[in-house]
């Protein structure tokens, strides 16, 4: 199979202005501040994309910022040391808002939506006795003990569940952009996933097909590329990939290869028979076979030459970053799959995620005007984009912002199904709209936007308190990274007129009311729901 000539994914060669840079920022970095947008514009297309995708595994300024947060306040203690679902949701939202390499967070969100684990199942799996002091530190003791060497702590169970979710999240942050194979292996052996999709109880005497099915159906290839016998054989090959429940270690839910539970008879997957005596090698083989499996797809004759995983994952990248309406049979999917599978130039391995995303974000297809403002912002993006763009902070991420994001339909670390969130139109329902608009209202109040913030943020951009056009365009430029149409501007002017009433000139207090109302209104615009 040869590398085909690109067309849609040829490098973008059109004009590079703040308009194109804004599209890139809306799609990859939760928008941008004016300084950030100016830097992306000045860098030129190629360097701008590089500056976004070449993030470090650890966001040091972010970690330092969190270390430096004052202790002793409920809010910051929750972010520094989350022990519940509420806390860990706030923990992540705070990181999204304050990350210095936001694409890392955006891509972690993609991966969380792709490799789903749900809080409810993880939390309910952790033994409640953990709160009684069971640290699993006594050899031979069952994990289910009523007490232990640690002092009782009502939060320990929650803290263990949080750690399971955070360890999985850390895989997304540190391995997400590399070789897709490494990511699949890491996820297969992630304790959180081993619990969530039950592979921890997949033993040779009682095979469990839950993970074996989903690693193909949802995590790599999509339906239609395997049969029920393949599911059973992969389940057998993955027997023994488990978590430690013998409590020989301090951490009772660590990865554990249960060699005695592994099925040592030959397995046949996609017609290939294998059986290794090396612990865990059958897992490696399964993932190799999945990644080489040529698509059964008949949607397009050309598809038959591509590995199913390269097509499926390319389709997921494209629907997340470019346009939800893209079908797996589309030309762009084929082109991206070809690069994803065949191009080994950077790194020397197939399925190089970072290089594939780099190619996508530099492609002419990505910047086509038909895609502008055609993706719906998810609830996290709705909140995070506004806070980042205005360089504001909400005083309560764990307990307040996280609740609003839940009300909008997204409980982080707890997607509704193993297939993740449905996205698109499903974000826009009546209750979700109410929650979005009410969070916009919260932002417009002094809880988030203080009088001081108004003065320092905006007064330098306006020409006196009567500069209504200046107020309106300020929020459009920050939140939409776009300018207002004449009709939209007119609605702002009417709003300001209504607020001003019959006064002939605007005082500072009326000016602040106009600013608050303008922020509220901007976040209710259809274009702000889109990106």
């Amino acid at each position, binding site marked *: 199979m040869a590398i085909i000539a690109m067309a849609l994914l040829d490098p973008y060669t059109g004009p590079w202005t703040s308009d194109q840079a804004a599209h890139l920022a809306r799609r990859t970095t939760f928008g941008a501040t004016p300084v950030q947008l100016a830097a992306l514009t000045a860098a030129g297309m190629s360097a701008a994309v590089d500056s976004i995708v070449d993030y470090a595994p650890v966001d040091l300024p972010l970690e330092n910022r969190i270390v430096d947060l004052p202790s002793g306040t409920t809010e910051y203690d929750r972010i520094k040391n989350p022990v519940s679902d509420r806390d860990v949701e706030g923990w992540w939202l705070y990181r999204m808002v304050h990350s210095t390499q936001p694409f890392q967070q955006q891509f972690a969100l993609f991966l969380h939506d792709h490799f789903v684990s749900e809080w409810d199942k993880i939390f309910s799996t952790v033994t409640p006795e953990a709160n009684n002091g069971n640290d699993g530190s006594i050899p031979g003791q069952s994990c289910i003990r009523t007490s232990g060497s640690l002092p009782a702590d009502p939060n320990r169970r929650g803290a263990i569940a949080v750690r399971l979710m955070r360890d999985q999240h850390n895989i997304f942050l540190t391995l997400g952009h590399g070789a897709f194979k490494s990511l699949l292996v890491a996820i297969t052996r992630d304790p959180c996933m081993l619990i969530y999709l039950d592979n921890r109880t997949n033993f040779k005497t*009682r095979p469990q097909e839950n993970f074996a099915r989903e690693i193909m159906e949802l995590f790599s290839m999509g339906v239609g590329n395997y049969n029920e016998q393949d599911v059973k054989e992969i389940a057998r090959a993955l027997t023994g990939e488990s978590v430690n429940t013998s409590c020989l270690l301090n951490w009772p839910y660590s990865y554990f290869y249960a060699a005695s539970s592994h099925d040592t008879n030959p397995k046949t997957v996609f017609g290939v028979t294998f059986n290794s005596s090396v612990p865990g090698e059958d897992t490696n083989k399964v993932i190799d076979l999945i990644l080489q499996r040529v698509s059964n797809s008949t949607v397009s004759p050309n598809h038959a030459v591509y590995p199913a995983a390269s097509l499926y994952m390319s389709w997921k990248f494209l629907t997340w970053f470019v346009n939800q309406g893209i079908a797996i049979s589309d030309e762009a999917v084929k082109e991206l799959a070809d690069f994803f599978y065949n191009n080994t130039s950077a790194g020397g391995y197939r399925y190089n995620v970072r290089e594939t995303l780099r190619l996508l974000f530099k492609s002419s297809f990505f910047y086509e005007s038909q895609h502008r*403002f*055609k993706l*719906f912002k998810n609830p996290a993006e709705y909140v995070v984009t506004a806070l980042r763009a205005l360089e504001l902070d909400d005083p309560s991420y764990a307990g307040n912002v996280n609740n609003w994001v839940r*009300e*909008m*339909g997204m409980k982080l670390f707890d997607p*509704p*199904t193993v*297939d993740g969130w449905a996205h698109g*139109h*499903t974000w*826009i*329902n*009546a*209750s*979700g*709209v*109410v*929650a979005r*608009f*009410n969070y916009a*209202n*919260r932002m*417009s*109040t002094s809880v988030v936007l203080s009088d001081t913030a108004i003065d320092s943020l905006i007064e330098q951009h306006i020409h006196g308190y009567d500069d209504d056009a200046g107020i309106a365009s300020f929020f459009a430029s920050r939140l939409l990274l776009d300018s207002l*149409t004449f*009709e*939209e501007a007119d*609605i*702002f002017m*009417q*709003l300001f007129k*209504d*607020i001003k*009433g019959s006064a002939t000139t605007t005082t500072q207090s009326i000016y602040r*009311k106009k600013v*608050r*109302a303008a922020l*509220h*209104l901007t976040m*209710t*615009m*259809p*274009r702000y*729901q*889109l990106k």
Partner: protein
Amino acid sequence: MSNMNRRQFLKVGLSGLAYFTLEQTTPKWVMRAARALPLSCLTSGRILVILQQSGGNDGLNTVIPRQDDIYYDALTRPTIHIPKGMEINLDGLNGIHPSMSGIADWYQQGNAAVLHNVGYVNPDFSHFTSTDYWETGGVPGQLMPQQGWIARFYDNTCNGHGDPEALFMARTGSSELPDMMAGSQNYVPPTISSAASYSLQTGEDRAARLNAIHDMNNLPTIDSDVEFLQRSVNTVEASTADIATANAEPDLYPGGYTADSLGNGLKLASKIIRAGFDTRIFYVSQGGYDTHANQAISGNVTTQGDHQRLLGNLSLNVDTFLKEMRDTGNLDRVLILTFSEFGRRINENGSSGTDHGAANVMFAFGGGVNGGVFGGQPDLANPLRGNLRHSVDFRSVYSAVIENWFGAQAAPVFGQANYDSVIAPELARLQFVKTNANVKDWANYG
């Protein structure tokens, strides 16, 4: 409050609400909503409540075939079967789970129907795919419809009959719009997860801000996504005041609803009906039926466990809802229809649970129901790969509701060919809905 009273309230009362008296103008959309004309379709006043049991309910432990020896065989359900005599007898052949005494009472009063063996050809065992079939009214081998069956039913019956009030349908107790109600050309039903928080907040300058939000979401557009957003915002604007009105209705049975999606959903549906709104179709949902493990506590306490808790909550909430309907003279115009994406395997698995199955039991409740058992008994002796075979297509059940409850046409909803070949022949066996003649005409209800 009756319809007429409520309209009066909207016209006269809204300007009296505290926040508007502080402002110079009433938001324009409030005026518009108050002027809306009623829809001239589905005018009988009858109400349908769809109740989803999400995850795949184990029908065999819900309605127990108490005369079937295979059910009690040690190889079938050794650790999770309901021990003989624990079930509540319905009709001799069938007994209901002991946690469902509330529903059993309604059965004895003739207000509950059991529909056995409902499913479709070539059953799919994926939650997602099978739910899609039940929500859209599609079946394997045919193109999956892009609209939910209720949306198609609505478009087919009501297009050209005026603009619906925002609350013509509602999903209550959850924020997600069910696929069943999605895709109408003309109408997006509101979703209300919590009645108490379903209102647009404004810090200051309320009327000015609400007017601006309205105008911003009503600019002319040719963009389908923007148009969709606009419709959703308009639905919110037109329904928040109504929900506040409804939410002021009292709880007639305090503690009678659980504080979860199903309890909150039925509680709000009851309030909306009792407040006199013209809502025709509600959708409520209860999750957690995917009982692969610990469905029952094995041993001699199999009437306890996750499934017991789910069915107990189902019975409690349905019982309270029906009582509130009865006490307010609404029982004869409500019909609750339950569904789940599939039943479960006949034999239990190794974890005191059951795996995904096929045909299943549905319920219909309310004053418009002919009580009894329909669809024959489940045939445990003749399984299809370990699962119950279906003898009633779920689209026939929907069609019975469309035709006999609403007096509308089902064939255009599911396709004439499907109607002729599958649905029409089954309808005669599905007389669980009282036909128009039997139910008081609610056209001038209120």
